[in-house]
């Protein structure tokens, strides 16, 4: 029950790839800052779509960058971000 918080673009570095390789059964992925560009990265987007219900997108960061949610990504704002960290047992920041 770990929430993995991502901040960097998957076109730039490999942290999202490395995180997905080690994802536990009941873990979740939260895309913030430049990690919201994962939704326009074809390979990564397919991997995220396979994780239905476990992928979250920070609305403020996505809107700032002009990125729209697609697939089964759940959109949350900062208030939802706070609650999400409490639904999971702990948060790992990559």
């Amino acid at each position, binding site marked *: 029950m770990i929430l993995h918080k991502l*901040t960097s673009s998957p076109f730039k570095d490999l942290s999202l790839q490395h995180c997905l390789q080690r994802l536990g059964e009941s873990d979740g992925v939260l895309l*913030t800052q*430049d990690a919201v560009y994962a939704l326009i990265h074809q390979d990564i987007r397919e991997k995220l779509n396979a994780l239905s219900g476990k992928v979250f997108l920070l609305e403020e960061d996505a809107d700032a960058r002009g990125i729209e949610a697609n697939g089964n990504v759940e959109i949350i704002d900062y208030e939802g971000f706070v*609650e999400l960290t409490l639904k999971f047992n702990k948060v790992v920041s990559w």
Partner: protein
Amino acid sequence: MSSFTLLVTSAPFTEQNAYSAYRFALASVQAKHSVNGIFFYQSGTLNGSSLQLTPSNEFDLYAAWQGLANDYNVPLMVCVSAANRRGVTTAQEALDSDTPHFSLTPPFESVGLGELAVLMKNSDRLIQF
């Protein structure tokens, strides 16, 4: 009601992380959760520099941190060893090292890493930015 410790390891302006931490802290206290403290480490200690001059048409994160401390009593703790090597020093530290100037003033406080251990022990979640 849950309790948080935030660990900020990124410089202001240069990276978005410190701003994100501020937004998270504000959303937490507005939702009536308790933020036991914001602990600044590594480049995050630069958030504590009172010498930052933000252009008037840009978001002033230093003022925002001050507001969070004043309005919600959130402690702003800066790791002394990480801060000093980056030029973030208190009046006392400046005096001890014969430097005439300093940059860290309240509500930011200069503390050791032990304070982080205490914060974490009493918090439901540690969130790193």
